[in-house]
């Protein structure tokens, strides 16, 4: 499990995350929501050690993150950041194979190939394996990256706005894949997401953040609530039930 105690981060004088205390439940899909600048991405980056925290501790399986070996951590927890594009001539398969680096250090074994193929299959990339990643559409690239994270085969998967650049079909497909990973493979997934309706439909638990603090957290149906959300985003938000699913309306 992941436990955060008194976690804070400042950029210059601006407090981005302040005194966050939180326990994240294992084997669940947890969504982090909140307005722009709430500190969601920074929180995720701190948990994955990309950004050092100023104060506070992060515990991963009861062990402080600082004492984890970098390579062991890479087998335990992985993060996909928003918008990671680069100029590199490699194929989809080669990209996904990098996910096996913590295990094989570049010398792929039979198990590694299996995991890579499995990840490619789950993300529906089988037809694209030999495509150059520079020729992919935004959605395809996003899926390739998720496949990389999947091939890394970690218990904890953190995703920072994974639905960016995707059309509705793939948005739904990705969310279903994430559910499948939680349910069938026992992963723990934490995802920063802006679309409330996706959070409402697919997340087990929701953490609402505002101004660097935890605004409210709990089971999805506790957070997807007209009062809570309207206060969180400071605009009136209505919730309608359409075919048994909660639906947030915030267009006027």
């Amino acid at each position, binding site marked *: 499990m992941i436990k955060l105690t008194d976690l804070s981060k400042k950029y210059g004088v601006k407090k981005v995350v302040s005194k966050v205390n939180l326990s994240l439940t294992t084997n669940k899909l947890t969504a982090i929501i909140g307005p722009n600048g709430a500190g969601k991405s920074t929180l995720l980056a701190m948990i*994955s*050690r*990309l950004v050092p925290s100023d104060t506070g501790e992060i515990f991963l399986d009861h062990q402080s993150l600082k004492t984890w070996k*970098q*390579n*062991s*951590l*890479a*087998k335990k927890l*992985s*993060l996909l*950041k928003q918008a*990671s594009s*680069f*100029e*590199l*001539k*490699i*194929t989809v*398969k*080669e*990209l996904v194979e*990098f*996910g096996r*680096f*913590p295990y094989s*250090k*570049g*010398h792929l074994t039979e198990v590694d190939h299996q995991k890579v193929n499995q990840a490619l299959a789950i993300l529906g990339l089988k037809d694209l394996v*030999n495509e150059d990643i520079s020729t992919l559409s935004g959605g395809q690239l996003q899926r390739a990256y998720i496949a990389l994270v999947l091939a*890394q085969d970690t218990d904890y998967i953190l995703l920072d706005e994974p639905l960016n650049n995707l059309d509705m079909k793939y948005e739904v497909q990705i969310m279903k894949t994430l559910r499948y990973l939680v349910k069938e493979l026992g992963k723990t997934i934490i995802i920063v997401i802006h679309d409330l309706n996706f959070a409402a439909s697919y997340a087990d638990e929701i953490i609402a953040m505002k101004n660097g603090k935890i605004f409210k957290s709990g089971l999805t149906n506790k957070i997807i609530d007209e009062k809570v959300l309207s206060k969180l985003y400071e605009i009136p938000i209505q919730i309608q039930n359409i075919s048994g699913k909660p639906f947030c309306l915030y267009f006027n």
Partner: protein
Amino acid sequence: MKKLIRSFPLKVIALLILVIVSCILFLTYQTYGNWDFALSLRSGKLIAFVLVGIATSFATITFQTLTHNQFLTPNILGLDSLYTLVQTTIFFFFNGKQLLGSESVATFLLTIAIMVIFSVLLANFLLRKGQNNLFLLLMVGIILATLLNSITTFLQVAMNPNEFDALQTKLFASFNNINSQYFPIAAIIILILVIFLWFKSLTLDVLHLGDDQATNLGINIPSLQFSLLVVISSLIGVSTALVGPITFLGFIVANISYHFIGTYHHRQLFIGGSLIAIFLLIFGEFIVEQVFKLNTPLSSVIEFTGGIYFIGKVIYERKNG
């Protein structure tokens, strides 16, 4: 992937043929029957070219991966100027004449040691201060070059002018003035460093994905950056000590290898790059000195070509991206 495996050996063979042909041309062209003399003179240069070619291409390709920038060369860190300063200082404080005798291998090692220490301090400082700020790295490098050059000039002015003149040519290496007594020690140092990079090359491949992604895959970026900077500066140090500074050789070689080898695999880039560098050096020397009989040092021809290539790349990248 399959396409690469099939074609890479072919490319290496093609490069090897080029290298061998240019070697033969270089060694045999217009010897005027004076075989032994020409051979011994030219084979010295040949060895230097091989060592410098390998050191430069390994160092530059690694440096460009580390900085995620294909326009940079490690010489930009101010190492060339540092080399001259160290040489001048050693000469200034210890009587240069003594050192130029039997102890010169010690001088060589001392120079390289000082350069490595300097680079370690610089790298440490920059990594702590800039946290990957490339602009800072570049500017500090440029400023340090001027600073070090100025101190060098100061020491040279303060020195006894006659003594300085007499020893200047001996102290400062160039393609026309290769210190062949350094070959064995230089070869050993280069070999060790190159083997180190060879083992790190799979990790370097991952670095292509960006520092964040690499961290995510379990690579300790700060410590990797640190060790690589030390290795890179040692390689450049050895190369500079052998033939003097050549800023743009690495830039040309690295970029030609990216195009010609067309892969992100560092092992293939290293092999290809080294062969390309050796070929360019030997063939360049052959054309410049033996065919056109130009009085110009090869290094200034390389600087010129490198500069033009640089502009070309700037324009090309702008048009295509």
